[in-house]
């Protein structure tokens, strides 16, 4: 019988895949898509919680998460564009995200 924890585990698996997409990949766009995947896994668990606890608050939260995802997509892609405008004219080393 598929229950509450199945959905939460599926969400945990998706979240982890997203986390490791961010950590493993070097491609900016793919890192960014992995972050979207993480947010989506949160949405799945919120919808499941809303169903199994019979409260609509979880669904409302999903709206806010989707809005924030859209906002981050817009701003993030704008930042990438503004960076690439520089890159086309200057040759510098690639961005190292984890350099302290």
């Amino acid at each position, binding site marked *: 019988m*598929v*229950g*509450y*924890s*199945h*959905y939460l*585990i*599926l969400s*945990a*698996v*998706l979240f*982890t*895949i*997203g986390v*490791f*997409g961010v*950590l*493993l*990949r*070097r*491609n900016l*766009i*793919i890192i960014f*898509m*992995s972050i*979207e*995947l993480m947010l*989506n896994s949160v*949405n*799945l668990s919120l*919808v499941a919680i*809303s*169903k*199994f606890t*019979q409260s*609509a*608050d979880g*669904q*409302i939260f*999903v*709206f*806010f998460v*989707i*809005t*924030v*995802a*859209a*906002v*981050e*997509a*817009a*701003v993030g892609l*704008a*930042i*990438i*564009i*503004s960076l*690439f*405008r520089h890159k*086309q004219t200057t040759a510098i080393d690639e961005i190292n995200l984890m350099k302290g």
Partner: protein
Amino acid sequence: MWHNIIFWILSILCVGCALGVVWQRNPVVSAVFLVGSFVALAGLYLNLNAPFLAAIQIIIYAGAIMVLFVFVMMLLDLHHPLDLYFRFTKPKLPKYIVLGLFIWLLCTLILATAFPLAIPDKAQGFTVAQVAILLFSKYAFPFELTSLLLLIALVGGVVLAKKK
């Protein structure tokens, strides 16, 4: 019964597509996989009696956000910086081990927590009206905050991305 079958099909599809996003070399193919994963998630929302969210998921995520992604990929001249920034680095084994541990840990923690497993058969979803009433009464203030957030994103996108 159908609920179970649909869950398993969609969850396998969803995880498969998610892995595709992470593993793919080409960002455009990754984007297609991501859309696939979003669609599978929308199906799961339907399965959880949340039809409105399923529709929103398709319209906003697959329709708007992913189009934005693909649009930016087109806009950036990928030919010449491609080899510089879009390099596929071989992931290292320890990271995979940590990945496995993380999933294992989360699953055990979820299983170790006792949830009320009852209700799912009787449980109904919420109608759009119920969700809307809650959104505009209890959550009216956070809702207003999202409008400020969207305005910030709008102005920010223009400021950062416009030509000098």
